[in-house]
């Protein structure tokens, strides 16, 4: 299941549509890092609203993704972590480090606009 990556002005939005295999996640990570370079994007938004589980691999890959994007000169915002998923992540001892998060797309765009001025 490929994740569609949309360009919106200075930002790139990746909207996850269904559960992702490890390969899908790695492809998303690499695809976004490439995208940022190609389009000179300032910010990346990853919408994880549909994910019903974020296990250690998913969390690690999202962290790596944000780090790669940061090294390419852009900022990442993770959008839509469900409350149950957040609860499970805390119990599992997983965290996203200092990656920005937002409840919805609008809030994420707002966050990027303020950051990337």
């Amino acid at each position, binding site marked *: 299941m490929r994740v569609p990556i949309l360009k919106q002005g200075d930002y790139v939005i990746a909207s996850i549509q269904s559960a992702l295999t490890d390969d899908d996640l790695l492809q998303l990570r690499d695809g976004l890092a490439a995208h940022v370079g190609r389009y000179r994007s300032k910010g990346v938004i990853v919408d994880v609203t549909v994910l019903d*589980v974020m*296990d250690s691999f998913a969390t690690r890959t999202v962290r790596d993704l944000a780090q790669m994007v940061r090294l390419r000169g852009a900022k990442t915002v993770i959008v839509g972590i469900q409350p149950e998923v957040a*609860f499970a992540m805390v119990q599992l001892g997983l965290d996203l480090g200092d990656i920005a998060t937002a409840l919805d797309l609008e809030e994420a765009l707002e966050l990027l606009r303020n950051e990337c001025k």
Partner: protein
Amino acid sequence: MNASSTHLTEQCIPIMSDIDVIEARGAARALATRVGFTGVDPTLIASAVSEIARNIVEYAGPGEIILSVVWNHLSMGLQVVARDQGPGIADVSSVMRGVRTTSRGLGRGLRGSQRLMDEFRVESSLGQGTTITMRKWLP
């Protein structure tokens, strides 16, 4: 763990690759909901299954995950058995205490899964593989 009778809905999912991890946690969530778990519980169960299935893929594949409904005198619950014939864990208790860790986080996944479930047992011997049995009871 308490003695209990199992069955009727026993489901076995072979675990060979990351795609099976998704299959296993999906099946666990579906069964959890059917058993009557609500709110955050199906997600906690699915997350625990995801972690232990992932351990099988990363360290010990192939293996299997067996989901079943269990009863004790008080309640009904869901049991997850994860079994592999992998290298085994040399010192289960230090892994579970967090004394010994591995590069990719075997112990962390096990300890995390333990926190998500009500009962958790690891049986392992070197060269013989590992069996993890975990249960969550309806509140």
